[in-house]
């Protein structure tokens, strides 16, 4: 979003200076210096808090001891990275992360997309707005609270299990105590929390579709269904690609807040993800260097995937995000 604003701003400035020749640069500066000054704090902020701390990443290659600091801790090369891949649980943890994050990414595109299409067909504005707001609400509740609520609701004697037991006469399901059910619970609860936000994005995109297209389709005798198929969906394709591309960078982020507040030792084999694993080793055991090494690894994979999907999006959909 931020990138968009900046690209909008630049051409406006450039067109103002385009007519000047010769001392174009100084003229440009004279006219636009207040803008640059206004930009300065943001740039500095970004430098100080965004880029300067990147230097701290060197501790991934050190045996970092807080009392020795960055400058005096001994260097250990790739030892932490080697340790990460030799760690017996690493494969399992990375696999869990990719599976959970992958399913989340897919479902967080499909569900809000479908929901936005359906909601868009609703004629009553009041109903539409109310639903839109209601589904958006969970997005603002933190996982600390949601975790507590889910732990209660999904307990073996909680509401959900009471209903299931009385309707289907089955044994209570351990939603959070059984590996396979745990993944299911994590993904469904994540969709429930997130899809309101996605819906709003798609609804906004829908509002931007040129009405002339629908009118033309109607003149050609297209039904509502055909209009959706041939006008709405193609118009939304770019935004789906943008959302999907940006989400792909998060393939190694399966949602620390959520998993941390829901998981327990029973579901380690199916639910333990990179971030919770790093929390236990890095923070609880004070292995800061190791934690940083995993973070660096994650960032590189995420970066590579974003670049890759950007290229693909450009090739296939002819769409430029940046």
């Amino acid at each position: 979003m931020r990138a968009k604003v900046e690209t909008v701003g630049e051409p406006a400035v450039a067109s103002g200076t385009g007519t000047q020749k010769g001392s174009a640069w100084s003229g440009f500066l004279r006219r636009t210096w207040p803008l640059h000054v206004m930009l300065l704090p943001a740039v500095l902020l970004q430098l100080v808090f965004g880029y300067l701390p990147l230097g701290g990443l060197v501790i991934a290659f050190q045996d970092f001891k807080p009392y020795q600091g960055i400058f005096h801790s001994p260097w250990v090369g790739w030892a932490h990275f080697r340790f990460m891949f030799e760690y017996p649980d690493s494969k399992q943890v990375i696999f869990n992360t990719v599976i959970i994050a992958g399913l989340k990414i897919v479902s967080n595109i499909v569900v809000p997309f479908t929901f936005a299409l359906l909601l868009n067909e609703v004629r009553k504005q009041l109903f539409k707005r109310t639903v839109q707001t209601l589904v958006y609400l969970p997005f603002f509740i933190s996982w600390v609270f949601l975790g507590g609520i889910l732990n209660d609701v999904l307990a073996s004697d909680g509401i959900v299990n009471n209903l299931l037991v009385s309707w289907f006469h089955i044994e209570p399901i351990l939603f959070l105590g059984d590996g396979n059910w745990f993944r299911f619970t994590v993904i469904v609860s994540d969709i429930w929390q997130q899809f309101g936000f996605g819906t709003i994005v798609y609804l906004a995109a829908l509002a931007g579709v040129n009405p002339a297209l629908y009118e033309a389709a109607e003149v050609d005798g297209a039904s509502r269904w055909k209009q959706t198929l041939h006008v709405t969906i193609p118009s939304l394709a770019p935004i789906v690609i943008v959302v999907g591309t940006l989400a792909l960078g998060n393939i190694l982020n399966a949602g620390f807040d959520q998993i941390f507040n829901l998981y327990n030792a029973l579901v380690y084999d199916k639910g333990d993800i990179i971030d919770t694993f790093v929390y236990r080793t890095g923070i609880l055991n004070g292995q800061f260097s190791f934690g940083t090494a995993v973070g660096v690894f994650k960032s590189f994979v995420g970066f590579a995937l974003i670049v890759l999907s950007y290229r693909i999006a450009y090739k296939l959909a002819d769409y430029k995000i940046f």
Partner: protein
Amino acid sequence: MGNRKKSLLLTLTTLLAVSLTACSGSNSGNGGKDGASSPSATASATASASKSEEKGDGTGWDGQKYATPITLTTVKGIGTNYFFKTGETIENNVMTKFVHDNLGIDVKYNWVVTDTNDAYKTKLRLMLSSGDKMPDIISFRGDTETLNMLIDSGQFMEVGDLFDKYAGDTYKQGVALNPDTWLPVLRNSKKMALPILDYAYNDDMVLWLRQDWMDKLGLQAPKTLADLETIMDAFVNKDPDGNNKKDTIGMAMGFKNGFNVWMSDVSWVFGAYGGLPNQWNSGADGTLSNGSVDPAAKQALATLKSWMDKGYISKDSALKDEVAGAEMFTKGQAGAIVGRNWLPDWPFGDLLNNVPTAKYKAYPIPSGPDGKIGAPSGNPSVNGWILVNKDSKNPEAILRYYNYFFENWANPQPGSAFENGFAEGYDWAKLPDGTITKDPQKYPDLFPNYADRTHLVEPIYYTLTFEGARIPALYADTMIKLANGGTPETPYEKQTAGVRKKENIDAMKIVLDQKDIRMKNYFQGPLTDTMKQKNELLNKLVNETYNKIIYGQSNLDEFDKMVANWKKSGGDQITKEVNDWYKANASK
């Protein structure tokens, strides 16, 4: 134009200045170390001025106080239990004046931080990593990892000789009560920090049962695990709450955070078979072994699994931490819980809110089939540490300070200065009829200048030793005296009799009656090298296997595989390191 240029210049300069301070503030890559850098050089300068040494022992101490006041520098995290009068701060309050006037010690704070979200710990760690000069003393209460960092920084002195020479008798007796007191801070048999003492036996476990259920179903006090199983069976199947629904469970347990926790505990089941999990137990031959892989644990797991199958413990136990586990008891669902003597204060108040007719009573921890009993013994009556800078001019000053509070505050006699509290108008006041009040809300005139009347301002918390001083044996001794029907005489005894519930006092008697069942964690040292690398792996292995066995998701024989795996994944190495440490430090 000139005007505009000037204003531009001004803007730029301001921005530059802002950016410069921002940059210098985070040049260590960690950010926000501002304020941590005021060096204690000035402090030591003033301290050296006190070398008058007319009489006494050459430190300027005349027996009562430092004749020429000395300065003691420190740092402080202000906890949420700190309340101040209007106009007072940690740097300037009734306590700092008192200490100046009576002990000749001026306490100077190099920095002060509000201790939320571990801010104090974080700032200490930052101070270490940025290589700042350390203050004369640091009092630290918190995780062992930070304590070890402080010790290993090499900035602090060995305190053994200091303690022998300057510590008062009360302090020395308190430390001697538990032979393990020094263990966590020993480095090559050298004592690296002074313990801040707390009341002993406060962390020991008892079995709490719903006495109204016991009476209703006509059940006898449990002596063994088998007795307890009979009781839990009755709690589950005989509808103790009388609502004609099978909605009760035997015991509230929560093992999300492990199998050796401070409330809703499970570890005593393991103790009934001979060894507590997740700690280092001493074997017959004097070597230490980890209780998690002890064969006894397998039997305990089999027992727990049968309890789970029979519904004695909740299907959600693996999802509950200590507090969530206890909620099963306090909402009237579970009939038993294992926890500490003070549970009547919290959280059992909730039980009485939810089930007004509920009654609870403490029982001894039951024994296993071979008559073994074991429960965790908690910390050895220490709740913090004081580190003394090796460059400190008056390293003995903190001991004088602590001694004073041991002699005068910890157990004041009737008629002494601290009989009612620290200072009149602060934490106590006298009504016209002579009775003592501690209610600032009801008597605003007697407690002037309060900023927040919902809390009593207790200056004793401003001390360098957190609560002035606590004599470890005092709490238990007083409780026993009260349990045996003694009349409270000293101010401390009267106060204890006033605030402690009868169930609490009885529970403390049980704790002391069965203090032989205490199984302490023999390893109290810093994490060994292999621990740092493998602890997470091993803990996960143990917790996952335990949980799955109890839930029937794995076979009981999985335990043996887990043990073999544990040993070859670093467990054997850690066992060796732990025993090396034990030989080097504990046996002396």
